[in-house]
């Protein structure tokens, strides 16, 4: 179970980082979302993985560490708020800057042929 769990966290983080490196706000938000799912799983696992163990004392002989669950709950709430803000900011950036690249302009492609300048001046 541990290996599967670790592989899931690792895979999600990898995907998240890959998407974050794309340089556009939309993929960046998706990447952050992936990474925050991965980090929530990671936090959940940080107290040790157990089966059939409630996180409340006195309910069973064996109980799970309740603290990581509290931490994950907080992290989820904060993650939601931050993602909502990031989405709104990305939309605002798209509107203000005219494109969704994180630097505010598409990087120049040295191989591209010189073309007629576009009329878009936002």
């Amino acid at each position, binding site marked *: 179970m541990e290996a599967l769990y670790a592989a899931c966290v690792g895979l999600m983080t990898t995907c998240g980082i890959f998407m974050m490196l794309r340089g556009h706000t939309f993929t960046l938000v998706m990447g952050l979302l992936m990474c925050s799912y991965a*980090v929530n799983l990671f936090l959940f696992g*940080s*107290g040790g993985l157990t089966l059939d163990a409630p996180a409340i004392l006195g309910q069973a002989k064996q109980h799970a560490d309740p603290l*990581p669950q509290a931490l994950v709950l907080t*992290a989820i709430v*904060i993650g939601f*708020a931050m993602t909502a*803000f990031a989405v709104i*900011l990305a939309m605002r950036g798209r509107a203000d800057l005219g494109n969704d690249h994180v630097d*505010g302009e598409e990087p120049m492609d040295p191989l591209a042929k010189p073309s007629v300048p576009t009329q878009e001046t936002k």
Partner: protein
Amino acid sequence: MKLVDHIAVLPVLLPFLAAILLILPPLQGRIQWQRSFAIAANLLLLIISVWLLVTINNQGIQVYALGNWQAPFGISLVADTMAALMLLLTSVLGLSAHLYACAGDDARGSFFHPLFMFQLMGINGAFLTGDAFNMFVFFEILLIASYALMIHGGGKQRTQANIHYVFLNLIGSTLFLFALGTLYGTLGTLNFADMADRVAYLPTEQLPLAKAGGLLLLAIFGLKAALLPLQFWLPRTYSAATPAVAALFAIMTKVGIYSIWRIHGVIFGEQAGELANMAQAWLWPLAFLTLAMGCIGVLASQSLRLLVANLVIISVGTLLMAVAINTEQTTAAALYYLIHSTLVAAALFLIAGIVQQLRGKAEDRFVTARKIAKPAFIGTCFFIAALTVIGMPPFSGFVGKALLLKSTIDQPQMAWFWGAILIAGLISLVTLARAGTTLFWRSQGNQVTSESTPALQIVGVVILLACFPLLVAFGGPVTELTQQAAAQLYQGITLTAGAM
């Protein structure tokens, strides 16, 4: 329970309640009422921080268990002298920045006052907390408020700088959680005092994991504090924000430095066994290079706001070098320097804001433009702030740097430290002299710009400028306090752990 028992939680509660009240109907939408209420809340916060400092001085460290859940399971707030000094600094800074903003900057967008209060709540909480996860939560509170404050007033340039700032910090928050998960998995606790106790007894196979967690934390605090490879966001962000917000942000890099002190100076400090001083090897060269980068940035700046933002990087480099030396003497001196450098950076940001208004289209760029209407007053303000930031007598910059130099006199790194600080001082002197002459003396034609400066903006700047002579005049008591803070920082961990 008397009110004095709850004093440690008041600096968090007060801005929180003030922010909520500012959104509710009686105050909502009435900018004049909001201004008076917010200034009153700021004054009250100032009084509470002084009171907290006095209480700690009389009764020792205040530990406040939230909801009466005892540590290490509950979250505790720990108010020692260092935290109280940082709170006092925040409230002075908050008050003057807020007064400046009330002259009209706050009306450029909505919700300035509540956001400002939430920001203060986050900063105060980050200074007071005694628990690593709680520190994350307060970091997020101060960050989400700062995201919105930074973009306050709108505009293309701000949006662009804000996108970088927000996404970098969101990535930072994700890494912060990974670090906390790793540390919880190895140490089994997130309470600072408890962590300091357990880190020395880690089983050998857990050591690399704990080290990875600790160093990941260093990277995150380095991002907040603008340590070298992670400092590129700072100049653009700070120079794009409105002056009042930039002035408040002067404390934000210090939150990062404070956290490095708490975590890497103390928890992974001398007593940490195998992991003792693990951050120092990274911190020293990076801090040195940060200082060098700040100097290059200062020389290359083309406007006063960019110049001040790069001066912030120089102060970060200086402070982190002192943190890397990590002795009680140096920490005490660095704390004095921290107080002074935060105040002077804020003062310079406010002055840059005034200069920008006065010079019309030339803004605060270093180009010859029309004469400023009454250059004497703002010129004097700039001169005082410049002398302070360079470290010339008679103001607090000189005392701060002298203390720092004196405290490192018998350290092996002394030569590098002295050289770096003195050369950085010289470079700031050259660039500020150039900036001052261009902005106030060189002018084109006889026409005079006609803009005037609102009284509230002047009050904001004067409050900050008044701190520099005061820091020198009361240098004795202030250095005693910083000494006490440093002493508590290094013993405090075992002390509070013993009480639990």
